[in-house]
């Protein structure tokens, strides 16, 4: 984990309200300096050209995140964004513009400096996931699954990899993951694509050895419950408001069987049975 200056390579909308940002560690300025007015001399292109499947793995674990802060004075705090793809010194994020923080990040232009702290937290234990695997995404919860799917697809101990994605209406991010999975199932709340309903309507966990889920809390809770009934291993990636992202402030804790745990360093990926979504149970 480091705090470094990066530069924005590309930041563009891929669906209404959904942005994809690529950043590259800045060699010119090094880490820990003031944010300069603007970087010059961008050489690399954004890495999401799908011909190149042989990118080197970066030391980032799938499911980890970075704390990102732009040069703007407001908002004060950095924002945690999950790693969508990582290769060498380039990190890609898929995010939804929701509040002041993500709006400031959405305003980044090519060449703009970004202060990034990371990779933060515990991601998915790629080497420890085997057999038939389902990735369950709710909305922007699909973000970490591109890098995760790529890493899992290279693992000899994975026999099948199914992506189950739920959206309100508009689909996004699927084509980025398609090259690395054996099957994609889609549900939309308004029935505009795939099955009308929720992800939990289109997947039964029983046939799977592991279910890995990221999305809103009600979805994670439903997935946890159905995995528990089916006896399927389940890992969930949890979202929380954060200030520091490094475990110092205790602002992002969630209630677990072993007491309050920090989402930023003890998570964001937890075994589902650990997490007490209702605060009690």
């Amino acid at each position, binding site marked *: 984990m480091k705090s470094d200056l990066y530069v924005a390579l590309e930041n563009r909308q891929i669906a209404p309200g959904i942005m994809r940002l690529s950043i590259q560690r800045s060699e010119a300025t090094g880490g820990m300096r003031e944010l300069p007015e603007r970087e010059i001399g961008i050489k690399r292109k954004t890495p999401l050209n799908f011909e190149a499947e042989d990118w080197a793995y970066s030391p980032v674990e799938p499911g980890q995140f970075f704390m990102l802060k732009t040069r703007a004075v407001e908002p*004060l705090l950095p924002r945690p964004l999950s790693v969508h793809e990582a290769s060498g010194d380039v990190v890609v994020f898929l995010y939804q513009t929701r509040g002041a923080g993500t709006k400031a990040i959405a305003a980044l232009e090519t060449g703009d400096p970004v202060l990034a702290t990371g990779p933060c937290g515990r991601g998915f234990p790629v080497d420890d996931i085997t057999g038939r695997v389902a990735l369950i995404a709710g909305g922007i919860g699909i973000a970490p699954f591109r890098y995760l799917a790529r890493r899992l697809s290279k693992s000899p101990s994975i026999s099948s990899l199914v992506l189950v994605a739920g959206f309100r209406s508009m689909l996004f991010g699927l084509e980025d993951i398609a090259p690395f999975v054996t099957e994609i199932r889609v549900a939309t709340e308004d029935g505009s694509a795939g099955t009308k309903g929720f992800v939990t309507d289109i997947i039964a966990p029983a046939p799977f050895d592991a279910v890995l889920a990221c999305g809103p809390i009600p979805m994670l809770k439903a997935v946890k419950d159905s995995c528990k009934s089916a006896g399927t291993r389940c890992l969930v990636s949890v979202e929380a408001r954060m200030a520091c992202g490094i475990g110092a402030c205790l602002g992002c804790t969630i209630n677990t069987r072993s007491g309050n745990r920090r989402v930023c360093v003890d998570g964001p990926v937890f075994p589902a049975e650990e997490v007490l979504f209702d605060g009690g149970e």
Partner: protein
Amino acid sequence: MEENKTTPNLVVDLCGLSLKNPVIAASGTFGFGEEIEPFYDPSILGGFCTKGLTRRPRPGNSGIRLQETRAGLMNSIGLQNPGIEAFVRDILPRIRRFGTAIIANVGGETMEDYVAACYEVSKSSVDMVELNISCPNVKHGGMAFGIDPDVAAKVVRSVKRSCRKPLMVKLSPNAPDIVAVARACEKAGADALSLINTISGLAIDVHARRPVFANVTAGLSGPAIKPIALRMTRDVSKAVSIPVVGMGGIETGEDAAAFIMAGAAAIQVGTAGLVRPDTCQRIIAELLEFMSREDIGSLSEIRGII
């Protein structure tokens, strides 16, 4: 003759404790120091204040704990901590190696809590105790001890009897008269004062038509409170003769210099350290740079000049 500039002297004497520099990481924003190690060597700090410790472990508050505001941060963590016993047994031996002053921040719900907790932690190898009578986020005790001069004096006097380390009392800006509380604490035997803790505030979720925080109010910190903190640091510094450690919205070396000019012996950095992990390191470098540029040889040349 060639101008002979020496490196400015940042050393601070705080109640007989020699700090390398005046920059102390504030309680609750620095964990127990271990989280910062990936970013810089904590030995560069003047010191750090631990997360608020209590006699018994506390799980902290439920519900939302953070809310960002314009130029600030509201928090309602609620003194989540493993308790003094676990701190002294498991954590302190690990962080002693940092080679910087460790200031144990102590909270409590009752007079007995404060006395017992301060006594327990002061028997360990910590360098100083910071008595937190200003936490706005606990239902019982906390700030209730820090808003009335007589109550504050009583708790300080009781703690002081058995506390074996220098006692710094952390004051609340929510007191109707912080100077009166400061004077009462000095008279009751406090060795130093630190201020300000967070300012009690309210955030409302208008869509849900309820407060954002389960405790209704929460503590505001960050750049937004700096002018208030500076004013209070100056007022208190002029009223007491014990050292005053100033804090509230410090983001840069020049901010640190401003607090020292307002009378602070040393300063604490809180929220800005959450924004960027390397903040304290940067503030130390910037303060040195500022002093060199302004030809200030030591902090005593500017301390309390305002």
